[in-house]
């Protein structure tokens, strides 16, 4: 996968449009999901800004982990966006979307899975931003802890800790919804939101960018 990706990067740098299309298809879902946790419904706009910059700066990409490079661009665009807005969206994903997704056909199709992609992302987005970012960069974008740390300007250890805390929080949320109503997990994803969601918006937005490592 990584080799395929770097081949495509080289080809796109040489002007190969299909290679660029491949890059877009490989990376956009992860970027969009990550951005949704950062800027909510504006994720698509921010993602297209990011792709604008990616295609412009691609010739200057000097090697290294291309995923990290793109996600750093996307993150910076998201931070700019938030700075412009001066406020974070109150809810990362509309609540209705969650209840609609409870009966998601997609969910039913995949026998093993109990939760749809959007519901999963909505749950992750309820985490404190630091934890949500760590989980998403690791599991969805597919970076290792060191690289994720470089994107976030934090130490790898801090990323591991944040991801671990995030996963424990998610496990607790899942368990709670499981106990109360085994059939409607996604629907149950909403109640915990006020608890974690309330404290998040104001303090974490400015905190997101400066490094603490």
């Amino acid at each position, binding site marked *: 996968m990584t080799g395929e990706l770097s081949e495509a990067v080289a080809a796109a740098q040489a002007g190969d449009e299909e290679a660029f299309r491949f890059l877009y298809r490989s990376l956009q879902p992860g970027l969009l999901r990550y951005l949704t946790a950062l800027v909510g419904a504006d994720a698509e706009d921010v993602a297209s800004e990011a792709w604008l910059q990616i295609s412009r700066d691609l010739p*200057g990409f000097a090697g290294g982990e291309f995923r990290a490079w793109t996600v750093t661009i996307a993150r910076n665009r998201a931070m700019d966006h938030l700075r412009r807005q001066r406020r974070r969206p109150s809810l990362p994903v509309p609540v209705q979307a969650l209840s609609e997704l409870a009966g998601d056909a997609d969910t039913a199709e995949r026998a093993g899975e109990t939760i749809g992609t959007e519901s999963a992302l909505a749950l992750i987005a309820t985490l404190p931003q630091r934890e949500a970012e760590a989980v998403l960069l690791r599991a969805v974008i597919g970076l290792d802890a060191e690289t994720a740390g470089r994107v976030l300007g934090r130490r790898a250890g801090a990323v591991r800790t944040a991801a671990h805390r995030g996963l424990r929080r998610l496990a607790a949320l899942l368990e709670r919804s499981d106990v109360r109503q085994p059939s409607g997990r996604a629907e149950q994803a909403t109640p915990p939101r006020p608890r974690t969601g309330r404290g998040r918006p104001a303090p974490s937005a400015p905190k997101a960018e400066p490094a603490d490592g």
Partner: protein
Amino acid sequence: MRFRRSGGPAHRAESEGLLDAARGGQPPTAEADPLAHLLAAAAAPAEPGELSGEEQALAAFRAARAAPVPATARVARRWGRLRVGAAAWLAGLAATATAGVAFAAVSLDRPDEPAPPAPTTPGSTGGESAASPTGSGDDPTATGTPGAASTTGTGPTPTGGPGQPAGAGELAGHCRAYLAKSPRQRARALETPGFADLVTAAGGADRVEDYCLRLVPDRAPKSSPAAPATSPAARTTSPEAARATTPAPASDKAPASDKAPASDKSSTGRADTGKSGNGPAGAANVDR
């Protein structure tokens, strides 16, 4: 720690395992932890709606290819990004050159003085210790190595590619080497096989210059005074740079091991807001 009562990963290693499984795209088994299912769902393959911006992104790509004239602000930004890589490259080049010369001097002395003091530059000690293991007192091998080492110093190819699997970094390296030449040498250099890829990528020998200025815009203004600029850099970084570049005649993999982390770090670190803790990250980067 508040969640001790519940399931979920008990320690960081378990969390890392879950995250890596999701990242690797392994579908969890039916009876797996709900958390594993959640992560797998979050990392599930693309849904069509997520790719709705594809044509727009491609249009941006085309536009960027068609009109690559960089705005002033962008040049500044890109220059900032490339500075680290360029500095590393220049340091490597200078170190290779000085190490070659120093080593040549040392090996000329060698028949007479079995223990050469190597007083020239710090780079010479690094170069010598790396190059001499093959035959410390032996003339034939000793004279063979410096010759090759000095070729890497002047020749653009081996040091140009910072060891990426991709050809693009190599092209950038060719470009820097090309731009560092005088106009007369440039024309001649393009006829050599070492620059054939560059000519192909640029779409013709007459377009190489534009192509290169686009690829490495920072090199344009200071193509001639490159030599004096390198000497301080060489002094600071020469020990490891020399060690990495001296075995270059064998293959161009050796500089790769040295360059990859540097360019890697710069690529992610500089694209960020610049506040990233580079010290520890850089160290971690090396073991990776």
